[in-house]
């Protein structure tokens, strides 16, 4: 055993910097965040009041609600539109499919400040599209609906990245066989297509939902702190000049992190089912 250890020692030394980075910039911050969430902001005494405040103050409750609402709508719509897009893409020739996947990867990175600004030009208070189509006048970009529309711009490509490989594996022959047996297309999707894709769709939905919840830059550039969201609320609490209450922010971040980890475990369980049922 000891000889084995000695033999492995140089290799452990190679991994050591990685371990250091993980300890310094991942483990310590997370532990520090959890610890400070149990301390008061005024004198650092141990307390549960931060958590008590989060779960009783309607202000924080509203942040959870808004984030969940936007996350849910943007992920469900994003998922549906990603399926529609994948379905169309698969009808194209191989060459075009490849080109479009490259573009999709690029577009998935077009989020944040530039995206927010582009949508302000188009649909802001004096947006160009509002001039062109007056009945869009009532659409408010700086509302949760506006955020959902803007989020969709990066949620759809992200969905495509995960769904496309799975949909590619579905054989065209399956549709032909089901046609041959006289089944309708909707019957095929209900009984064959959707059940086979279900695990992939489930885990993709969770990733999109988590992504929607965690988005900060786009929301910050678009609405600032006008809409009470988890991410903008946390950032105002930890780095704000006026409302800085870092330990309450930590508690909020810990709860948020817990939700995210739970979601990821769920998606992993789904992925494991995928491996078992193929596709």
């Amino acid at each position: 055993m000891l000889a084995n250890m000695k033999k492995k020692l140089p290799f452990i030394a190679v991994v050591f910097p990685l371990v250091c980075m993980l300890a310094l910039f991942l483990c310590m911050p997370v532990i520090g965040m959890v610890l400070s969430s149990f301390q008061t902001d005024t004198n650092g005494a141990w307390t549960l009041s931060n958590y008590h405040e989060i779960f009783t103050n309607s202000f924080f409750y509203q942040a959870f609600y808004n984030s969940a609402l936007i996350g849910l709508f943007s992920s469900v719509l994003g998922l549906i539109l990603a399926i529609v897009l994948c379905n169309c893409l698969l009808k194209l020739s191989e060459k075009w499919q490849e080109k479009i996947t490259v573009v999709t990867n690029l577009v998935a990175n077009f989020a944040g400040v530039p995206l927010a600004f582009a949508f302000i030009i188009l649909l802001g208070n004096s947006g160009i599209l509002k001039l062109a189509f007056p009945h869009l006048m009532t659409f408010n970009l700086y509302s949760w609906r506006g955020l959902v529309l803007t989020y969709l711009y990066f949620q759809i490509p992200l969905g495509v990245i995960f769904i496309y490989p799975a949909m590619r594996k579905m054989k065209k022959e399956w549709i032909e066989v089901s046609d041959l047996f006289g089944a309708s297309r909707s019957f095929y999707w209900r009984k064959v297509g959707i059940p086979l894709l279900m695990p992939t769709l489930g885990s993709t939905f969770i990733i999109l939902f988590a992504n929607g919840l965690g988005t900060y830059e786009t929301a910050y550039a678009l609405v600032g702190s006008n809409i009470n969201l988890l991410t903008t609320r946390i950032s105002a609490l930890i780095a704000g000049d006026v409302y800085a209450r870092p330990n309450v922010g930590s508690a909020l971040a810990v709860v948020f992190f817990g939700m995210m980890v739970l979601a990821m475990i769920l998606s992993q369980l789904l992925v494991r089912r995928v491996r078992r049922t193929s596709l």
Partner: protein
Amino acid sequence: MKKKLPLSTKLILLIFAIFYATPFVSTTIYAFATKWGKTILPQGVTLEWIKQLFGDTNFYVAIGHSFLLAIVSLIVLLVVMLPAVYVVYHMFPKVDYTMQYFSLVSYALPGVILATGLLKIYSGSQIPMFLVLVGALFITSLPLIYQGIRNSMVAIDSKSLIEASKMLGASSMTTFLKVILPNIRFGVLLSSLMIFSGFLGEFVLTNLLIGGRFQTIRIYMLRRMNENGHIASSVMVVYFIILFLVGFGMNQLSKKMKESANNTRKKRRFGRESQKIVEKNTSTAKIS
């Protein structure tokens, strides 16, 4: 083989294309428009905004900061990760298995949460916030680079290469430097470019950890957005061009990768590489 596409498919694809092109097009037009707000088309075309932008020293500073941050972070990432993935993948399969799950951390740990913890530990400490930012970027890009390097090693069947190289008497170090690194260079470069373009556009962590004291492209963009939309658009156009160049490079690279994968030359190159190592080892053996 040309297939006729159904009209509905064409229509849906067209709608998606319009949805995805419009923001790019409108931003670009806005950057060159004199005044655009009361009419459907801009009132005139001008280079005024671009000129103003290139006359602003803060703009160069912001680009410099972004590149500095991206280059330093990428170097740290590669120096730490290349040997580490090599060792973990080949020597510690159990660690490798858990690292696969790690990729989900990037989704479970949004920048805001990571920044909360980092500020808690490091704000007011001796460590400069720039280094903390580099560390934070390291953590967020860990899954991507790990997967990237690992996939490249799987693609070249590194396990049998290492075996062959060991059999020929090369040390692990020589194998890594002379056999593995040259063969995974395209794959690693590809992931590096992807991560690099992400670093260039970093906003969340920079803004929360350092804020206005260290202006990067995106922070500069946001500041200009609140002052003059036309100049903000010009910044975005420049930024898109940079990203496009990076993307173009990536595309060329992946083409090259495919070519070299299809080529039988690849195998011959492996042969030559190991031949060289043998020659080197025998020559050092003679000297000693």
